[in-house]
């Protein structure tokens, strides 16, 4: 178990290093002189040359990469933004909470509504309730976020004046962005939970649980739901990448100062250090979320760890031991 967990944590570092390499190569091959961009249009050639030298831009690429990683790891230094001349890390940190709040709230809402609806549909398959839930999932799935966002602003902010159209400040500001961002995930969670529950409801162990005299609700939750969870957790983790992508668009529609907005601005301004930093931050968040999901898997399904190192590993070790003993006995016989 611990072997798996440690291995899985190490994998996070490998993934982040991989992302760093790719991002670094990409920004290397994009045109433009960082020193010139930092100093602005009025700087002379000499000034730019001096700045480039001090920034180490004349060193071999591998050295630059090493320095970039070193600075990031030791000083959390991701370079300076071309547009504001401020350290990228600091700018990201002021924006991170917005994206994180938006993403986590949207994911939580999708789970809290999608999963119970899926279960409720499945336990009464083909009932009116189930039909309504399936239809709802279909509608939610086909709503385009961007269009729906504008529509909502129009209705709830402009016409009804219930909710603020954009910006931050109160928790009212979060309602529309979070709800809209959660819809796609909610739809897919309804569908996945429902079909996964339908599969487990038919399983023999559900009947065994009923044969014990267990209450139907407990049979469904303790025996059915826990088994149905594996595909659901899978869907949640897939959904998180969609949500992270979705924050970029939602943040622009609702003018939320998060990382998504920061990155769209940075891309339009060709502000590479900022883009690079943003991508790295998202990659880290993403790796950690995936790590958590994988650990949840392990907690739900005991078969995963066994498949990894359990029964077979034990058998193989035993076999190896027996073979060694046989070999030793054979050697003894030959020699003795």
């Amino acid at each position, binding site marked *: 178990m611990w072997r798996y967990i440690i291995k899985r944590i190490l994998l996070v570092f490998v993934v982040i290093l991989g992302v760093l390499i790719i991002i670094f190569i990409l920004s290397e091959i994009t045109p433009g002189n960082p020193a010139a961009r930092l100093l602005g249009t009025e700087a002379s050639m000499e000034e730019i040359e001096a700045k480039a030298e001090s920034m180490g831009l004349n060193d071999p690429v591998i050295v630059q990469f090493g320095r970039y990683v070193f600075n990031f790891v030791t000083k959390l230094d991701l370079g300076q933004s071309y547009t504001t001349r401020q350290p990228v890390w600091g700018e990201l940190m002021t924006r991170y909470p917005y994206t994180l709040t938006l993403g986590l709230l949207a994911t939580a809402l999708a789970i809290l509504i999608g999963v119970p609806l899926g279960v409720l549909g499945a336990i009464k398959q083909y009932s009116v309730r189930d039909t309504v839930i399936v239809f709802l999932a279909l509608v939610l799935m086909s709503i385009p976020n961007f269009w729906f966002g504008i529509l909502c602003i129009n209705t709830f902010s402009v016409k009804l004046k219930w909710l603020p159209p954009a910006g931050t400040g109160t928790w009212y500001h979060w309602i529309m962005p979070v709800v809209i961002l959660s819809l796609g995930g909610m739809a897919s969670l309804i569908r996945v939970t429902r079909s996964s529950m339908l599969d487990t409801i038919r*399983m*023999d*162990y559900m*009947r*065994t*649980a*009923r*044969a*014990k*005299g*267990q*209450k*139907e609700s407990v049979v469904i939750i*303790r*025996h059915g739901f*826990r*088994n149905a969870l594996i595909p659901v957790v899978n869907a949640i983790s897939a959904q998180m990448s969609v949500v992270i992508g979705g924050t970029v668009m939602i943040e622009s529609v609702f003018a939320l100062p998060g990382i998504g907005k920061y990155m769209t601005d940075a891309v339009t301004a060709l502000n590479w250090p900022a883009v690079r930093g943003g991508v790295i931050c998202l990659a880290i968040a993403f790796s950690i979320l995936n790590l958590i999901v994988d650990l949840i898997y392990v907690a*739900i*399904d*005991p*078969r995963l760890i*066994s498949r990894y190192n*359990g*029964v077979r590993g034990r058998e193989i070790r035993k076999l190896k031991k027996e073979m060694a003993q046989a070999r030793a006995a054979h050697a003894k016989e030959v020699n003795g």
Partner: protein
Amino acid sequence: MVEKNIQNNETVLEVDDLVVHYNTEEGVAEAVNGMSFTLHKGETLGLVGETGAGKTSVALAIMGLLPVPPSQIIRGSIKLNGEELVGKKNKEMRSIRGDKIGMIFQDPMTSLNPVMSVGDQIAEVIRLHENISKGEASVKAGKMLEKVGIAADRYKEYPHQFSGGMKQRVVIAIALACNPNILIADEPTTALDVTIQAQVLELINDLKKDYGTSVILITHDLGVVAETCDRCAVVYAGEIVESGSLEDIFLHAQHPYTKGLFGSIPRLDVIVERLHPIKGLMSDPMTLPEYCSFYDRCDHACEECKQGEPACMEVSPGHIVRCRLAHPEAMKPESWEKGQA
């Protein structure tokens, strides 16, 4: 009833004229058609019949676990220690299931929850019916594991870490954990290797004796019946076509279907030219005739058999045959002597 080993025994379960239908889109499947039988204390009753004969449906009806819809108990009664079970509220049935009646299912590979440790699965049923703490239930579950021949220190292991035979042992432990009056074993060995089958049957037999449990053993294997049962009922198309003691069924079978079942078993002691499996297919429960259900497959069928359902005849004490051709075993004095002793 004058049969020796039954005489003094009280009746634990009495099924009377039970009719179970499944209402499906394709039509009504008449799975159980007026089955009646009794189970006495400490006895093992075998229910034998081909797949689709309605054996599982009877078992589920007794447990109150028939899936509704599509199934429906049309009529009949099921009495446990004199108490009527048909029509009982689900809540009342819950206190009976697992406590008074335990059940073992056909496929041990799928009857256990894969994400729950085997010990916890046993402890669950104990906690439901006995007013004891979690810790005490665990201790008891551990003892139950030992009883079925699994080391108690495997309590925390999961079903995938056990072989098929071991899983069936766990299922047996669950079924017997609360010391039920009745154990229903629905083809408990069908899914197991032949070598394991004997062990599991032996275990059921031993535990049954220890606990004084009455057992309904459902099987399609007459060999299993011969080894473990006291009495046997042959089920065809939802009806009991012949029932009686092992001797009645194995030595003096009268129903053509029962005889056919024996004809389709390979025998080692007698050299037979070829096996004689019963011709034709199992009757379709959707289209059962008004007359004898076995008519289409019967070698002795004649016009007379089409005149309605054949009546049950008690050809010797406790030996009941549902066939027009059934005749009293008057010429068999040894069975009479035995019966009246």
